[in-house]
C-alpha cells in the first residue's frame, strides 16, 4: 500500500505505478471499501494528506486536505456555527463498521449527501475548487477558493461521484453555510407510500421551505412515519410549522416530533438501521413521483425500503434478482446503484447502473482525459 504524506509522494506513487504497469485503488478512511468488486490493485491511501489548509468563516470557504476526517471538519465548522449544507454522512454503519473513519475526500468522491440534499444540493454543489494529481502523475488545479466563479470548465464537479476513477484529490475547497439556529420535525403517521409521496410533494411545493422530507414505512409495532424537517430562525420555523400543519391537517393528525424521536428518525435515514443488514442494499434515484409504484412492486417481492428526498431517493434492501431492480429503476426514469452485497454478487453485478452505449463511451473518454493509461481502472466499478 502507498501511504503518501504529501502531494509529491502522490505524484511519485502514481508515476511509479504507471511505469510498472500497475493499477492503484484510491482510498482514504476505508468506510466505503466494501463497495464494488473485490480487486487486487494496490491501495493509494490519502489518509496521510490530512488537515485544514484554510478556513475563513466570513468568506463561507473551507480548504482541506482529502484525508481530513469528516467528524473533525464538522466539529470545526460547528465551533463557528457553520456546516457542510449537503449533510454528508459516514457510510461505515451501513457496512457494519463504527462511524468515524470517513474522510472528506471519500465523502466528496462518493457524492455522499444526506437528507438535506433535497433542499441544499449535493456534494457536487459545494465543491468550489480542488488540487489533484491526474493519472499522468501531473498536478492540476481547477475551480477556485471563492464562492462564485465561472473561470474555465467546472472540473471540481467531476470529483463528486468519481469514486477515485479520475484523479487523486490532494486539496479540496468547499462552500460552507451557516448552521440553522434550530430545526423542528413535523410528522404524519400511517400513510402508505403513495400518500406519503403526495404529501411530501405538496409540502415541497408550498412556501414552507422544507429542508428535508423522508418516509419510513410501517414495521412490526411501529406505524409508518412521514417527516418534514423545517430549519432556520425560531420565528420563521414557528410560522412555517403552522403553514405545514394547516396544509396537512386534511390528511390526518399532525404531530411535532420531540427532539430525541426526530434525531433518531433522521439518523435512521443515514445508518439505514430499519433495513435488514444482511440483504443486498440498493440506492435508487428516481423522479419523486415514480417512487411509490416502484417500492410497492419490490416490497411485494420481499424488498424493504426507506424513502428520502421527498421520494427521489429509495434505499432498498432486496435479496431478489438484481436485473429486476435495475429494470424497475430504469422504467421509473432513474438508476440503481448496488451499495452493498456479498462478494459473489459484487463480482458479477456492476456498482453503477450501466449507461446507454453513447454515454458509456463519453464517460470512458472523460476518464482517459484524466487517466490515459488507466492506472485508476481497478475493475472495482
Amino acid at each position: 500500500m502507498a501511504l503518501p504524506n504529501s502531494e509529491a509522494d502522490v505524484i511519485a506513487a502514481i508515476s511509479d505505478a504507471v511505469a510498472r504497469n500497475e493499477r492503484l485503488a484510491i482510498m482514504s478512511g476505508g468506510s466505503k471499501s466494501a463497495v464494488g468488486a473485490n480487486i487486487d490493485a494496490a491501495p493509494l491511501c490519502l489518509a496521510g494528506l490530512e488537515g485544514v489548509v484554510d478556513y475563513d468563516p466570513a468568506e463561507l470557504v473551507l480548504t482541506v486536505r482529502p484525508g481530513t476526517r469528516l467528524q473533525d471538519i464538522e466539529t470545526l465548522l460547528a465551533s463557528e456555527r457553520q456546516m457542510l449544507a449537503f449533510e454528508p454522512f459516514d457510510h461505515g454503519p451501513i457496512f457494519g463498521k463504527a462511524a468515524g473513519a470517513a474522510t472528506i475526500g471519500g465523502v466528496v468522491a462518493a457524492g455522499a449527501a444526506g437528507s438535506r440534499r433535497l433542499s441544499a444540493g449535493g456534494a457536487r454543489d459545494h465543491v468550489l475548487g480542488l488540487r489533484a494529481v491526474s493519472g499522468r502523475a501531473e498536478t492540476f488545479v481547477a475551480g477556485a477558493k471563492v464562492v462564485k466563479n465561472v473561470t474555465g470548465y467546472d472540473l471540481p464537479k467531476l470529483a463528486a461521484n468519481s469514486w477515485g476513477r479520475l484523479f487523486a484529490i490532494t486539496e479540496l475547497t468547499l462552500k460552507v453555510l451557516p448552521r440553522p439556529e434550530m430545526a423542528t420535525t413535523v410528522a404524519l403517521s400511517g400513510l402508505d407510500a403513495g400518500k406519503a409521496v403526495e404529501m411530501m410533494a405538496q409540502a415541497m411545493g408550498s412556501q414552507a421551505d422544507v429542508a428535508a422530507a423522508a418516509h419510513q414505512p410501517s414495521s412490526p409495532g411501529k406505524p409508518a412515519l412521514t417527516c418534514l424537517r423545517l430549519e432556520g430562525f425560531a420565528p420563521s420555523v414557528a410560522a412555517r410549522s403552522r403553514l405545514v400543519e394547516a396544509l396537512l391537517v386534511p390528511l390526518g393528525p399532525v404531530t411535532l416530533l420531540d427532539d430525541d424521536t426526530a434525531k433518531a428518525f433522521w439518523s435512521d435515514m443515514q445508518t439505514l438501521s430499519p433495513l435488514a443488514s444482511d440483504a443486498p442494499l440498493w440506492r435508487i434515484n428516481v423522479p419523486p413521483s415514480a417512487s411509490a409504484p416502484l417500492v410497492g412492486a419490490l416490497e411485494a417481492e420481499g424488498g424493504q425500503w426507506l424513502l428520502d428526498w421527498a421520494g427521489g431517493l429509495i434505499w432498498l434492501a432486496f435479496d431478489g434478482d438484481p436485473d429486476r431492480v435495475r429494470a424497475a429503476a430504469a422504467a421509473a426514469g432513474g438508476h440503481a446503484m448496488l451499495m452493498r452485497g456479498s462478494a459473489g454478487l459484487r463480482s458479477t453485478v456492476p456498482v453503477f447502473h450501466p449507461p446507454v452505449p453513447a454515454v458509456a463511451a463519453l464517460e470512458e473518454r472523460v476518464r482517459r482525459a484524466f487517466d490515459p493509461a488507466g492506472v485508476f481502472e481497478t475493475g472495482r466499478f
Partner: protein
Amino acid sequence: MRMPAADSRTLARRSEIVAALRAIVPGEGVIDDPAELRPYESDGLTAYRQLPMVVVLPETTAQVSAILAWCHANEVKVVPRGAGTSLSGGALPLEDAVLLGLGKFNRVLEIDYADRIAVVQPGVTNLAVTRAVEDRGFYYAPDPSSQIACTIGGNVAENSGGVHCLKYGLTTNNVLACEIVLMDGEVLRIGGRHLDPAGLDLLGVVVGSEGLLGVVTEVTVRILPRPETARALLIGFGSVEGAGQCVADIIAAGIIPAGMEMMDRPAIHAAEAFVQVGYPLDVEALLIVELDGPAAECDHLVVEVERIAFANGAVSVRTSVDEAERIAFWAGRKAAFPAVGRLSPDYYCMDGTIPRRRLPEVLERIRALSRQYGLEVANVFHAGDGNLHPLILYDANIPGQLEQAEAFGNDILRLCVEVGGVLTGEHGVGVEKRDLMPEMFSEDDLKQQQRLKCAFDAKSLLNPGKVFPQLHRCAELGRMHVRRGATPFPDLPRF
C-alpha cells in the same frame, strides 16, 4: 483580439457548405446574405465584430445532429448561439465557421409540479420559464440581469448567476438534465428528472462550458415555490470598510440574504441622477440587503440586519414597508449600468470575484489604476459572494481609449487573481478574458481542461478560439510515454 486564422479552404467551399446546410434545414433557416448576417456579427461584447460565414437556424434535434455531423465530417467549425447576450464574446462568430442559432428552439415542453421541474427548449428565455409557472406560485431561481432576453441554453453554456445566486445558486445548481448533441452528431441525454447522475457528473462540466463541449437542445430545470414575501434594506455607510464589515457580520450572524448588493460613490451618484429613487448622496457605500421567506422570518431578520448595520457605523438605514418601496430600492441598482452609460459615451463592464475581506484594498487599488489610466470607474458589487463589476468609462471615438480601457480592465482582473479571486464570476471567459487565463491557471492546468474538451470534441471544431489562449491538437495533448514499445494496459479501449 487574435482569433484562429480563417481556413482558406473552408472559405473557398462556402457555397457548397450553404447548399449542404440547406439540404438539412429547408427554407429560411439558412442565412447567407451579408445584410441578413449583420445582426449576428457580435454578441453583448460589442467591441468585437465578425460576420459569420453562414447562419443556420435549425428547429429540431435531428437537424442539429445532422448539421454537426456534416460539419464534423467536413472539418467545418461551428459557433453556437442563444440570444447573443454574452458579455464575454462567447458567441462571437468566426469568419470560417457556421453560426448555429438555437432561437427556434423556443417551446416550454413540459411542467411537472409534483416533481417541481420544467422541461424547456434552449431558446426559451430565462424569464419565460418563470412566466410559464408563476400562476401556480413557482419560479425559476437564477436571474441574470439580462433575463428578459437571455436564453436557458445560453445560461447553461455560461453557468449564469444573478443577484439571488448566493442563496439560490447558479444555473449549475438548478439544472437536472440536458439533451446535448456532440460535434460528431451524437445525441446524448445526461442527468435526469432525479438528483445525482448514475456515473460521472457529465452535466456538471457541460454547464459553464461556454459552448465548447456540445450543443444543448433540451434542458430540465428545477422550479421553486416563490417565497411568501421579500423586504429590502437600503443602508448607507461613510466608508467602504464599514459596508464590507456589515456584509461579513450579516453572514456571521447566520443570515444568507436573498440578495446583497453594494455600490460605491460614483455608482450611487450615477444611479440617483438617472432614476431619482432617493439614494443618499453623502455616503461612500450603499448596501441593498434583500430578505425573503415567510413574513415572520423577514420581520425578524430586518431587525437583526438593522442592528448589525448600525453597529458598523451605518449613517442611513431605510427598510421597505411595501412592495413598491422594495422595487424602488432596487430600481437604482438595476439601472446602474445604463446610468453609468449616461456619464460617458462608452463603458466597459468587468466581472472579477474576490474574497470579500479584500474589498477595501481592491477598491483603493482600482482608484489608483483609475488615476494612472486617466479613466473614471464606478463599482457595483454582488457583495454576498464577492463578485465585483467595475464599470470603466471611456470614449471609443478618442483614438486609443478603447485599448486603454481594456488594459485597465485587465489590470483589475489581474488584481482580483492576485488577492485570491478569479477572472470571472458570472460573465464567462469567452474571447474577452481568454488571454488572461494563464494569470489564474498554469500550462498543466489548462492542458488538463483541454483534454476534457478533446473527450467531447476531438477535432476542436466547436467554438474554437474561446476560453483557451492557446489551441493544442488533441493528439498532442493525449500523447503518452510509451515504454519499451508497449502501451500500458492494452486491454483498455482508447478513444
